[in-house]
């Protein structure tokens, strides 16, 4: 692994019973790089993203994230590692329905000892950057799809992650809102230097990425 490599997966395989979803994939993400993982539904890209982010353990192979081998870590060690180094953006936003926008953003900070004011301040700053400063106290049910995803992006940034994993971040949005979200991700990559590994089945969205990796039947094809 070179100095600029922040994430690397080596010979990763994942089996569910007899079905091998990811087949001996090796992949490296450099600091500040924006990589798009594209492929048809069911080709194994979301599973690969889960393996690389530590949400799931591979059947075979190793994952090294920010200089640390994570495949042998315990569940709790992985959780703490994700809290400190990783951000997630999901297709369905996955906001907590009972928490306001700022509280959703601050969700990763809840287990950390700090005052509510501190959490709120950090969440407010990020929501301001997402142009949602006027929506701080709104529940997710009162937000549009695009607003929800912007809240989710702010949540992914709350811990100043080295890398953001985005799984179909525009999948539930109309095309213009999707473009706006892609603009934000592109800006984050350019201005903040955050590495992004994004999964999408829409080849059009991959234009924003530095590098496009195509998957088919659990393998990287290009």
């Amino acid at each position, binding site marked *: 692994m070179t100095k600029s490599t922040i994430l690397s997966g080596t010979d990763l395989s994942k089996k569910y019973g007899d079905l091998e979803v990811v087949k001996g994939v090796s992949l490296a993400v450099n600091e500040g790089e924006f990589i798009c993982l594209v492929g048809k539904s069911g080709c194994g890209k*979301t*599973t690969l993203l*889960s393996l690389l982010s530590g*949400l*799931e353990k591979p059947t075979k192979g190793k994952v090294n994230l920010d200089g640390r081998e994570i495949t042998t870590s315990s*569940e*709790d060690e992985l*959780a*703490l590692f*994700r*809290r*400190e180094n*990783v951000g*997630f953006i*999901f*297709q*369905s936003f*996955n906001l*907590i*329905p*009972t*928490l306001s926008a700022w*509280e959703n953003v601050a*969700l*990763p900070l*809840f*287990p950390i000892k700090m005052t*509510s004011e501190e959490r709120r301040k950090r969440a407010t700053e990020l929501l301001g950057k997402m142009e949602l400063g006027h929506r701080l106290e709104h*529940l997710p049910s009162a937000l549009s799809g695009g607003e929800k995803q912007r809240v989710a992006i702010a*949540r992914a940034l709350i*811990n100043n992650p080295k890398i953001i994993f985005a*799984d*179909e971040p525009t*999948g*539930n949005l109309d095309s213009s809102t999707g473009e706006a979200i892609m603009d934000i991700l592109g800006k984050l990559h350019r201005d903040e230097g955050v590495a992004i590994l994004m999964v999408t089945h829409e080849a059009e969205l991959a234009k924003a990425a530095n590098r496009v990796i195509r998957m088919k039947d659990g393998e990287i094809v290009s």
Partner: protein
Amino acid sequence: MNVRYMMKELYYQRRRTLMSILGLSIGIALLIILNSLSSAYRRAAHVPLQEIGADITVQRSGDVPKDLAGAVFPCSAVTIRKEEVEKIQKLSGVRGIGTGLLLWVFDPNRAWIVLGIEKDNSIGPSLLRSSVTEGRFLEDGKPEALVEQAYARQFGIKLNDTVSVADKKFPVVGFVDASRAAKIAVANVYLPLKDAEDMAASSKGLQSVSPYAPGDVNLLFIKADQEKITGLASEMKGILGNKATVATPESFLKLLGSLFALSDKFTLAASLIAIIVAVLIAFKTMAGNIAERAREIGVLKAVGWTNRNVVSQLMSESVIQCFLAGILGLLIALVASFGLSFMKVNIPIPWEMSPNPHFLPGGGDQVFKTLRLPVHVPWNLALFAILLSIIIGGMTGGLLGRHISKIKPSEVLRHD
């Protein structure tokens, strides 16, 4: 644990929260009501004896009088010897003894139920002092009589009249209202114990059936340590023989016949069932609630919550819900107890303890002590119920939290 998150979850998921609270509160209310009812019956069973200032009453059955003339002992209360009284007095747990002498006196024109009482003993029928409606109570060293108010009205007896009982004359110094007194050891006329003793000692008819000497009695009223009552009852039977009738709160409780009064075992079993029902309700509703939140738990874990963070969050929600359920259950139980306290309970007085000759009109009728069931929720039961609710909440939240925290975030988040 994040308090803000917990409160918002409980507030915004009001329906879910209310269902959990209501379900568990019913179980907790049931537990409190069952135990309150049970202790109310226990308290009620103490009343007939408490009214004569005793915890135990003792008498002994004997032969039926041969001739209904002059002073005789009722067949349910014959001589208890002075030595036997002294033995009982020495038993461990006996705190004090009151004595009485119950006589049926058959004069040519009238039959009397006569009770000789110790005027200054706070244990026993001297408690009638508070039931004097007219005149005064008996005084020391004077041969005088108190007459029961209804009896006096029936036979036209006036205050300061002189009544003749077994050929001995007694001025009437007061009237007592027996309807306000205990149902045990009531009589038509109350005399100083010394005069009743003389009456019994000089009655040939009485002596021929049950030999009697001054100092002997036929009714004992005993104050005892509460926890020793049952043991003392059997020791007294050992002293007085098989024909002894020893009345205790426990014996009255058995006469009540209610399920709640039958035994501690019933209350214990019913309480256990109520607790199990409460736990099952809490477990089922919380399990449903937590299962609905699997995706949310997956998000928490994905963004860096450890298993311990998840468990403590869910446990805190569960404890708060169960605590609120405990409070609501207590309130329901308090309202129900207030309603139940209007219920009347009839405590049957055993025929042996009823002083009325059963061969006289109405004498064989069952006598009851009727009172309002003294239902109230003791503070220690209330505290126990609240603590139990919190423990149920902690256990339920902990177990379910540990179970759900094991889910892999990728499993619940992958199918967008």
